């Protein structure tokens, strides 16, 4: 069982070199909780013109924190980042373009047959 132990040690070593301790993860969770609190506060308090940008920024920050720390992406191989971020960016860009096209670029009055729409 020598070799098995060696490999266990290796993996053990790898994981303790990366990532946070349990206490660290709890701290991250607390930060997420606070950010969520601020998000929810927008329901009760009028943030005015910064409401939508704040919510979007908070959303992105929370997203990034969970991905980097809880999902370990910050400490792991770049290969995982490429795989995930490619899908993420593709989704954001493509659907932003689709949404913009459907919401803003079309003529809501319909298609005028005299010119292509």
């Amino acid at each position, binding site marked *: 069982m020598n070799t098995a132990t060696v490999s266990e040690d290796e993996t053990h070593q790898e994981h303790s070199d990366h990532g946070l301790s349990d206490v660290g993860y709890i701290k991250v969770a607390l930060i997420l*909780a606070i950010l969520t609190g601020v998000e929810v506060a927008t*329901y009760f308090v009028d943030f005015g013109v910064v409401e939508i940008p704040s919510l979007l920024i908070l959303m992105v920050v929370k*997203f990034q924190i*969970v991905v980097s720390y809880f*999902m370990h992406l910050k400490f792991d191989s770049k290969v995982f980042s490429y795989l*995930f971020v490619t899908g993420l960016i593709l989704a954001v860009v493509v659907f932003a373009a689709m*949404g913009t096209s459907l919401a803003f670029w079309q003529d809501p009055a319909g298609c005028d047959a005299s010119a292509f729409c």
Partner: protein
Amino acid sequence: MAVTTTQPRRPPLADTAETQTSELAYGRTDWDDHHHLPTNTGLTNEKVTMWAFLGSDCLLFGALISTYLLCRNRVGPATKGPTAADLFDIPFTSVSSFVLLMSSLTMVLAVTSIQRAEMERCKLWLLTTAALGSIFIAGQVYEFTGFYREGLGFTTNISSSAFFTLTGFHGVHVSLGIVMLVTMWVLVTRGNLGPERAETIEIIGLYWHFVDIVWIVIFAVVYLIP
């Protein structure tokens, strides 16, 4: 690139009943299949698979979320009933969002505990995560039945169809995650999943966190942003 990790080699087995037995015990848990074999990247096939799948799932939820955003305010001559946004109970949903968020923490703790070979701890955190996920689902069910009673069903109008489809897909993802977590709890309890297979829990954790980050987006753009 040349292979980077060493292959753990099992000692040669003599052709005896005892060794066949120990072979069988391992075989039943397919632990031998999860040696960390040499791969070009040094990463296991299973973990690369999960990250690739999650990248793909981004497109799925991107399509569903943008469909909802495009449908939520559309009206036509036959439109009736409230929109989903009319009926949101933000305080309630905030609580269930918080619950799901904290389940990510417990998931991470499950992973770290099995990495430290603390199997009982791992079981506890796995179960807690599954429980928190179940509370989230229960909250969804409560919320949706409430909507239904207030006149917002799946077929009521286009915004309701989109809302329930989006949240329904998310809920199914969560439910599948709960099934996987409970399965892992069972396997750990039966001794079929030991600390050498911590990566399995880690991989399920990745899926669970993904389901959480999708909800982070849904909570913001569907519920909170007016």
